[in-house]
Structures are given as C-alpha cells and as structure tokens.
C-alpha cells in the first residue's frame, strides 16, 4: 500500500507541474525564428513542397541517420535475443491449420496494393505527407498481413538483411558524395533541384527517402519475422 501511496504522490506532483505549465502557456501567434527560416527558405534551398521532409532529410539529416541507426540496433538486438537459427527446423513443425479461404484470397489481393501504397508514400515524400518512415511501416504491414494469413510462412532472412544493409549503404554513400560534390554531408543538391511540385525534384531527396523506406521496412520486417519464428512455450 505504501508503494501505491508513493506513486499517487508522485503523480500528484507531476500533475501540479502540468497544471502550472498549462496555466502559464501562451500559444504562439507567429512562427518562431527557426520555423520562419524553414518556411521561407526550404522551397528555394531544398526544393521540397513538404517542409517536414526538408527538415528530416536535409536540415536535420544527421538526426535521421541516428534514428535509422537506433532502429538498426533494435532490430539487431531483437534478432540476437530471440536467437534465430537455433531452432530453424523446429519452428516449422508447429501444427496450425491454414486460415480460411476468404482471408487467404483477400490477402493475396491486398498485399500488392499495400506494397504499392508504401512505395507511393516514400517516393512522393517530398510532395505529399509521408516519407521513408511511413512507407517503411506500410511495407512492414504488408509482411504482417502475410504473417497473419499464414503464420508458418517462411521468409528469407538473408534477403531482408541484404535489402537493409544495401539500402543503408547507399543512404550513407549518397550522404558522403554530398561532401565532395555538393555543400556537405547529406546535401541534396547532388542532382538539380528541378521544379517545385514535380516528381523528379528536390535533388536526391526522393532517392534518399526511398532508401530510408526500404531500410526501415526491412528492419520492421526482420523484427516481425524474428518474433514470429519464436517457439510456443
């Protein structure tokens, strides 16, 4: 009971803090300095219609690199913890009947569409909402639908690892090329900026975002596949 009282006390303190914050908060009516800079300059400097994309890929490109690294580490830790390869042959022996005909046919119909939507989301990341992370999550959702339809489906681990590492390599390679041929690491002006609103615009941002999308999709997929190949304890 004393633990619960402590918890309530802590939450009460936190709540008071929040109320204090809320009472003293005055909403902005104008953009602050950074926001104004991004709003005014990203169209000419970066050439993206979606300013969030400009921030993620170029202005704060190193943060994104760090984020991708964190995801990579997470996927690796999940893989190590679950120890795939130890019971590769055994996992296929689980006795599960297949799902009903409707779900099977429906998933065959929907999976290509989900993959197409994922590709659309990350290729158009500089024009419409979305980008590499969303597209990667959508692609992983397609893998998830396959797993839900048939939990025993076997996926090629080495293919997922290959997609992940190759796209990561190209992401960094493009960033390094930017040091030599453009303004700096992950500078997008390797290619001409093009016209605002066209698909081939904003320099290398669509290419970078495609690689990020493939990488994130492969990372999430490897987490899903690793988890699904664990044994029923």
């Amino acid at each position: 009971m004393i633990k619960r009282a402590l918890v309530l006390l802590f939450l009460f303190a936190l709540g008071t803090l929040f109320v204090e914050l809320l009472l003293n908060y005055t909403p902005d009516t104008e953009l602050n300095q950074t926001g104004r800079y991004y709003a005014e300059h990203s169209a000419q400097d970066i050439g993206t219609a979606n300013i969030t994309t400009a921030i993620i890929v170029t202005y704060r490109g190193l943060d994104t690199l760090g984020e991708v690294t964190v995801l990579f580490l997470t996927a690796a830790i999940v893989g190590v913890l679950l120890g795939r390869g130890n019971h590769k042959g055994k996992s296929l022996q689980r006795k599960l009947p297949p799902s009903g005909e409707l779900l099977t046919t429906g998933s065959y119909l929907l999976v290509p569409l989900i993959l197409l939507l994922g590709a659309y989301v990350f290729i158009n990341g500089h024009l419409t909402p979305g980008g590499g992370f969303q597209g990667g999550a959508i692609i992983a959702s397609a893998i998830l639908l396959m797993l839900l339809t048939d939990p025993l489906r076997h996926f090629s681990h080495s293919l997922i690892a290959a997609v992940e590492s190759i796209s990561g390599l190209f992401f960094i390679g493009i960033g390094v090329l930017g040091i030599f041929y453009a303004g700096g690491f992950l500078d997008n002006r390797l290619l001409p900026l093009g016209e605002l609103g066209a698909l081939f615009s904003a320099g290398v941002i669509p290419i970078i975002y495609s690689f990020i999308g493939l990488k994130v999709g492969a990372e999430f997929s490897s987490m899903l596949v690793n988890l699904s190949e664990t044994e029923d304890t």
Partner: protein
Amino acid sequence: MITIAMVTGFILILMGLYGALTNPNILRMIVSFTIANTGVNIVLVAVGYIQGRTAPILDEAVPVAEAAARIIDPTPQALVLTAIVIGLGVTTLMLTYAYKLYEMKGTLNIAKFSELKW
C-alpha cells in the same frame, strides 16, 4: 483547441504512468507505457500548432510566397515523427525482453522477479 489537446495529452501521460507504476503484470506495464508515449506526442504536436493555420506542405492551397504567414511550425512535427518510429522500436524491444523473461521464469508478474527488487 490547443488547450484541449494539451489537457488530453497530460491526462494520458498521468494515466499511462499510473498504469505502468501500479500494475504487477509486465505486459500491462508496456501497454500503459505506449499510452503515455501517445500523450507526450500529442502535447508536442499541440505546442507546434498555431490557431487558424494549415499544414506545412506547399501546393496550390499554400503558395510559396504566403508560406511564412500560413503554415504552422514544422519542427515539432519532425521531432514527433521520429519519436513515434523510435517508440515502436522501443516497444518491440520491451516486448522481446518480456518474452525472454517469461521464458526464463514462466511468469510475467513483476513481484516474482525478486532479483529486480530495490
């Protein structure tokens, strides 16, 4: 509108923390944690919102010349986007640990893990 969202976010944070701190079951602690995570994201997005403005995407509705006067702050959005993706990674990691803990002890009750007592 900003106030509504901030109040919601704070309430979600408090509820999530309450659940995470009082539940004995590890899986439920993780569920509560995701709720608190969502609350934090809502607060951050609400901070970046400016009344009467629109999304930071330039198209026919928002030409480049008017951008600075019509869009909201894009920086918190970029941060929250990162936070959500990392949140999924963290959740997966926690769930993997929970699975390994269960494999080790055959239970998910936090009181049974006496090595973790402080």
